């Protein structure tokens, strides 16, 4: 598709979407036929949105649930029609919103490719040309000739993703996940998205993962209750958003995040050193071979927190004295670049206290020929102050964007202190008497 490069990819002015509330279907039909909808209550999902997105730009969309993010994306994709304002979209849009929504359950994967690709305006001939490419990418073997209702959810998204990204779109819309599927396919899908981004595709990325938004998108739009709260450079907008989130959190009762450690299946019983991969990330697709040694798989094989050489998932520590250590062991396909490790420390109310990553500190991990790598992280004279903290570990790609595996709240640390210092932690300081 050729178009004028001076044209923006997306231009919206005073864009809005209202839903009619409370009308029965019969009333609604009558209003539509007669063309009046005056005496009705409206719900405004989106209003007064002005956006200008240049071609090749990467834009993040952030906001809480119900802020209007999905509505905005659907408007851009054309599945919703705007109630007010103008919207101009230049180029072919591919959306990773509802993967496989257009599939017909009774038809085989191959037939669904032919049919779904038709939704992108590809003629039969073009689809034939891409058919093998799509099948190869989806990599679901002989299932391609089985009806899609027999697919596992993993195979379903694989096929849908392959179709959605094989058409070489001009604008790619991603809701929430930068990768789909599990294991090796997650990495492959992530690479495909990065490859599209590098080839100059305009990217719209909507996520709660502010970290990923910030690392991928140069510009960011923050939506709240259907209105644009801020838009501009990602770092600025995300900082504002974080401030605002903290203010909101203060107004509410603090949520104790400790229960999440048990919710994610990591009870005190799993103190055993080897955390089995299946317990952490349940395999969506039972037909896939087990992770051990399989191509493209990257995951934790061991994760252990120690405090003064006492291991466990519920640790106790003394502020300013204890040595907190985390031992990581991972297995990564030697074909893939060496991954990165990160650790995040949360306070009891779910806020990030601090974080660290190998790429931030400039540490290059190593691994053996079997793909196994080890590292340990030490916090000597633990500067955390009294309270309960929890630890989350990440295994990430070489760019530190794609998350291979996240083990949330795998250990809690109960910190006690002998004196009355206030706050979350003690920053290095010096007193001087003058």
């Amino acid at each position: 598709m050729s178009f004028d490069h001076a044209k923006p990819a997306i231009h919206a002015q005073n864009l809005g979407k209202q839903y009619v509330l409370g009308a029965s279907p019969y009333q609604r039909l009558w209003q539509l036929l007669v063309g009046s909808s005056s005496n009705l209550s409206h719900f405004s999902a989106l209003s007064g949105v002005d956006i200008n997105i240049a071609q090749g730009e990467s834009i993040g969309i952030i906001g809480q649930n119900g802020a209007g993010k999905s509505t905005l994306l659907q408007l851009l994709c054309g599945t919703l029609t705007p109630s007010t304002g103008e919207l101009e979209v230049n180029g072919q849009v591919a959306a990773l919103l509802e993967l496989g929504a257009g599939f017909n359950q009774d038809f085989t994967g191959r037939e669904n490719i032919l049919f779904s690709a038709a939704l992108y305006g590809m003629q039969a001939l073009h689809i034939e040309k891409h058919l093998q490419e799509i099948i190869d990418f989806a990599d679901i073997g002989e299932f391609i000739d089985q009806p899609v209702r027999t697919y596992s959810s993993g195979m379903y998204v694989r096929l849908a993703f392959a179709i959605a990204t094989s058409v070489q779109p001009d604008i790619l819309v991603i809701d929430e996940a930068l990768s789909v599927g599990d294991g090796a396919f997650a990495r492959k899908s992530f690479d495909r998205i990065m490859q599209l981004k590098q080839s100059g595709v305009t990217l719209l990325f909507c996520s709660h993962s502010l970290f990923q938004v910030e690392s991928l998108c140069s510009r960011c739009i923050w939506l709240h209750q259907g209105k644009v709260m801020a838009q501009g450079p990602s770092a600025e907008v995300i900082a504002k958003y974080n401030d605002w989130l903290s203010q909101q959190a203060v107004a509410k009762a603090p949520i104790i995040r400790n229960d999440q450690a048990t919710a994610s299946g990591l009870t005190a019983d799993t103190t055993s050193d080897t955390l089995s991969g299946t317990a952490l990330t349940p395999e969506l697709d039972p037909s896939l071979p087990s992770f051990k040694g399989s191509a493209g798989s990257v995951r934790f094989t061991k994760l252990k927190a120690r405090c003064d050489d006492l291991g466990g998932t519920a640790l106790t520590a003394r502020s300013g004295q204890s040595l907190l250590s985390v031992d990581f062991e991972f297995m990564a396909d030697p074909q893939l670049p060496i991954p990165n490790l990160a650790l995040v420390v949360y306070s009891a109310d779910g806020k990030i206290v601090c974080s660290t990553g190998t790429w931030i500190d400039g540490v290059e991990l190593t691994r053996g020929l079997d793909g196994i790598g080890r590292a340990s992280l030490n916090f000597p004279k633990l500067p955390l102050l009294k309270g309960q903290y929890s630890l989350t570990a990440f295994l990430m790609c070489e760019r530190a964007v794609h998350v291979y595996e996240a083990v949330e709240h795998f250990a809690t640390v109960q910190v006690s202190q002998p004196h009355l210092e206030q706050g979350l932690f003690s920053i290095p300081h010096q007193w001087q008497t003058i």
Partner: protein
Amino acid sequence: MPAAAKGHSLKYYAWLALQLATRDIAVRYRGTSLGWLWSLLTPLLMLGVYTFAFKYIFKVRWPGVGDSPVDFALQLFAGLLIFQAAADCWGRSSRIIAEQPHLVKKVVFPLALLPWAPVLNAVFHAGVSMLLLLVVATLWGIAPSLQWVLLPLLLIPLAFLLWAVSLLLATLGVFMRDLTQVVTLIIGLLQFLSPIFYPSASLPAFFQGLLAWNPLTVFIEQVRAIVFSVQGPSLQMWLQSLVVSMVLSALAYAIFRRVRGGFADVI
């Protein structure tokens, strides 16, 4: 996976409609052991049952034909194949958009194409039935006539008529969940308000006038005219039915366009 597929050609829409229809027909026979053979077998068995019932049990004669070998069963079948096409198609139409919420809300899909699936499905089966009617008629001693080749031409205005009504039903069906029940009733009624079990000529003039308002009447009468009658089909009737079908199609599409924006609000 929506895509703003704008400005497609008519050719593309025709291709898509054909895809939908072949899917629709294939789904009907998928998994059955006889497969596509059913499309031939169903009307054949139907014809067999009617022949047996009307020729050997009731021993009824078609009014105005006398004792000719053109049997009640064949006349009945000629009417039924048109009615069956309409009944099959309209009976499903009212739910055809409402049952596909993902096509309404999640992807950009030309929804007006959806009714083409049952329409082309019905037209295809009507075509098979027509072929069967001609074969059986020949076997029963009706001399094949050159005008028989005109029979498939009836399917063109028929397709547009079926689509017009289907699209209207599908559109209204999104808002009116009770429509399916109503349509079932009306189709049952239509079976007797169409000249299936009787020729319209056997009715008093007043009722003939009323019957002419039934859009199926002209098609049924035309099938009979082409297959059984010597005087042959009327070009004027064919053109008339084509124009009426087109006007109805345009009307149905206009209504569809008007209310389409509200689909997502109620589905």
